[in-house]
C-alpha cells in the first residue's frame, strides 16, 4: 500500500560482480546477509556502460537513446565543437524520487549522478560529483548545506577525489576513505533526523579505487608487481565499506527493503587504442598540420574537406561521420551514409591488437541498441577489445596502441555487468540468483514496491521472484 513501504538503494559506483560476489563475499558480512536473505545477480549496465548515462537509466527505467544523452558530454547540434554536459537538466523524465514526490512520498537522495543543479522535489538532496565545487548550491533545500557543514565540523565536503591523477597513491586512497566516511555520516544523520519513504545514495569511491589501483591487485594485469604495498587495497576498502554499510543498514531499520546496486562493473585495462591516430593513418581523418607530440584533436587543425570521420576518447569511442548537409563542411553524400558507415564499422572491427591478434572490438549502431535516438547520437559506438582497451582521442601518439595514459595512471576499464542485490524482509529470497537483469529494471522494481505503475513507455520490467 502506498506510503507504508520504505525502500533504500545503496549505490556503489562500478562495484563489480567478480570481486563482490565471486571473490570477496565471505569477507563482507553485511552484503552476505543481504544476498543470503534476498535475491541477487549480475545487472546488465546501459550502453555505454558508464556512470553517465547509467545511473539515469537506472532511476528512470529507460535507455540512453530515449534519454538523449550518450555520455558526460554530448553534441548539442551538428556543428564540430558544440558540446554540452549532461547535467540534471538533461534528464527530462521523472526519476524514482520525482515520481514518488507526486504521490506525496518523501525521499532522501545523496550523491546520485546527474542531480546537479538540484531540482525541487519532496525530500532532501545532496548533489553529485558533477557539482562544480562546494561553493555551488549542492543541496535541496538550500539550508541543508549549512547543516552539512556543521555535521562535518568544518571539514570540507568532498564531492570527489581531488587530484586523482597524482602518483601519490596514499593520498588518493585516503581521500576515497574520507569521501565514503563523510557520505555515510550525512546519510545516517538524514535518516535519523528526517521523515522518509525512499532513500538512495551513490558512493563513487569504488570506481576511483578500481581505476587507481587495479594493476596493484590483479596478478593478470600487465603492470602488476607482486608484493607491492597496495596488493590488497581493493579488498581492504570493500571490507571497511561493508562495515559502514552495516551501520547504514541499522539506520535504515528492520522493515526497509534494501537494494545494493552498481551502475557497471570493472575489469583490467590492457591498453588504449588511439582512435583518431588510426582514422588519420587509414585516410578517414585529415589534419592540416600533423602534431609531433600527443595533442587533443580539438587543438589540431582539421581539413574537413578531406575528413570523413573523427572520434572521441574515453572508456569507449564515439565516432562521428562528416555528412554533407548535416555537418557544416560535410563531404559524405547523405545517400552514401549507410554504405560508408558499414565500411568504417567493418574496418574498425578488423583492427588487430599490437601483436597482430584479433582484438574482438564491438562496433554498435545507435538505432540498433536504443528504442529511439533522441538528441544527437554518435554515428557509431566502439568498445575496443570488448572493453579490454580504452579509447584515446589524442593524435601525435606515434602509434595506434598506447600503454601509458598521458593523463596519469588508469588501470581499469568498465565492464558490462554491475551488481544487484535485493533484500525484502517481508518477502525473503533465500539467496536465489537471478539472471537476465537490466539496469532499467531498477526503477519499475522500486515503484512496484510502493504499488505505483511506471510510465507506459518504461523499458525495464519489475524484478519479481
Amino acid at each position, binding site marked *: 500500500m502506498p506510503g507504508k513501504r520504505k525502500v533504500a538503494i545503496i549505490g556503489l559506483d562500478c562495484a563489480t560482480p567478480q570481486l563482490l560476489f565471486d571473490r570477496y563475499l565471505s569477507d563482507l558480512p553485511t552484503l552476505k546477509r543481504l544476498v543470503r536473505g534476498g535475491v541477487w545477480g549480475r545487472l546488465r549496465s546501459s550502453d555505454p556502460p558508464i556512470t553517465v548515462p547509467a545511473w539515469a537509466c537506472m532511476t528512470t527505467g529507460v535507455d540512453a537513446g530515449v534519454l538523449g544523452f550518450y555520455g558526460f558530454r554530448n553534441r548539442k547540434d551538428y556543428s564540430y565543437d558544440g558540446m554540452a554536459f549532461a*547535467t540534471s537538466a*538533461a534528464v527530462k523524465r521523472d526519476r524514482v524520487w520525482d515520481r514518488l514526490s507526486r504521490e506525496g512520498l518523501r525521499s532522501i537522495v545523496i550523491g546520485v549522478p546527474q542531480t546537479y543543479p538540484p531540482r525541487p522535489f519532496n525530500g532532501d538532496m545532496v548533489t553529485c560529483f558533477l557539482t*562544480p565545487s562546494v561553493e555551488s548550491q549542492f543541496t535541496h533545500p538550500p539550508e541543508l548545506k549549512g547543516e552539512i557543514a556543521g555535521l562535518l565540523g568544518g571539514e570540507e565536503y568532498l564531492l570527489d577525489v581531488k*587530484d586523482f591523477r597524482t602518483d601519490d597513491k596514499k593520498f588518493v586512497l585516503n581521500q576515497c576513505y574520507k569521501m565514503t566516511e563523510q557520505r555515510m555520516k550525512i546519510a545516517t544523520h538524514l535518516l535519523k533526523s528526517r521523515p522518509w519513504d525512499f532513500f538512495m545514495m551513490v558512493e563513487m569511491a569504488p570506481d576511483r579505487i578500481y581505476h587507481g589501483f587495479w594493476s596493484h591487485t590483479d596478478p593478470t594485469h600487465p603492470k602488476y608487481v607482486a608484493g607491492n604495498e597496495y596488493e590488497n587495497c581493493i579488498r581492504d576498502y570493500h571490507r571497511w565499506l561493508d562495515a559502514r554499510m552495516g551501520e547504514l543498514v541499522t539506520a535504515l531499520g528492520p522493515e526497509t527493503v534494501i537494494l545494493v546496486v552498481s551502475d557497471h562493473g570493472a575489469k583490467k585495462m590492457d591498453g588504449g587504442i588511439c582512435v583518431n591516430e588510426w582514422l588519420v593513418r587509414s585516410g578517414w581523418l585529415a589534419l592540416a598540420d600533423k602534431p609531433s607530440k600527443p595533442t587533443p584533436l580539438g587543438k589540431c587543425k582539421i581539413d574537413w574537406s578531406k575528413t570523413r570521420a573523427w572520434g*572521441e576518447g*574515453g572508456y569507449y569511442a564515439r565516432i562521428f561521420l562528416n555528412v554533407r548537409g548535416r555537418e557544416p563542411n560535410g563531404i559524405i553524400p547523405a545517400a552514401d551514409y549507410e554504405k560508408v558507415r558499414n565500411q568504417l564499422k567493418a574496418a574498425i572491427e578488423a583492427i588487430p591488437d599490437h601483436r597482430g591478434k584479433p582484438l574482438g572490438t564491438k562496433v554498435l549502431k545507435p538505432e540498433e541498441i536504443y528504442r529511439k535516438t533522441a538528441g544527437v547520437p554518435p554515428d557509431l559506438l566502439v568498445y575496443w577489445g570488448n572493453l579490454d582497451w580504452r579509447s584515446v582521442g589524442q593524435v601525435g601518439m606515434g602509434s595506434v596502441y598506447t600503454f601509458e595514459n598521458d*593523463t596519469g595512471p588508469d588501470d581499469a576499464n568498465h565492464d558490462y555487468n554491475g551488481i544487484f542485490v535485493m533484500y525484502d524482509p517481508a518477502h525473503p529470497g533465500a539467496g536465489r540468483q537471478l539472471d537476465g537483469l537490466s539496469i532499467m529494471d531498477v526503477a519499475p522494481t522500486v515503484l512496484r514496491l510502493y504499488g505505483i505503475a511506471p510510465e507506459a513507455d518504461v523499458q525495464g520490467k519489475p524484478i519479481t521472484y
Partner: protein
Amino acid sequence: MPRPKPKPKRKAKGRDKVTIKIPRELYRRLTTLIEGTGFGSVTEFIIYVLRDLAAGGKLEQEAGLSPREVDLIRNRLKSLGYLE
C-alpha cells in the same frame, strides 16, 4: 452571531494577490535574517527578492552552468579519465 461582511475595498485588493506557502523553517530563518534591515515583514522581503529576480527576465542559462562551472566540471572529468 453573523460574521460582518468584509468591506468591498478590501475584497478588491485581495484579488490582486495570491497566497504562496513556504516551509515554516525557512520562514523562521527569514524572520531572523531581516531583523534590523528595514524590511517590515518576511512577505515584504520575499516580494523584494522575487521582483529583483524576475526583473532579470530569465533564470541563468540552458544547463544552469556558468562558463567557470563548465571548466571546473570538465577538469574534474579529465582528471578522472572520463574525458580527454
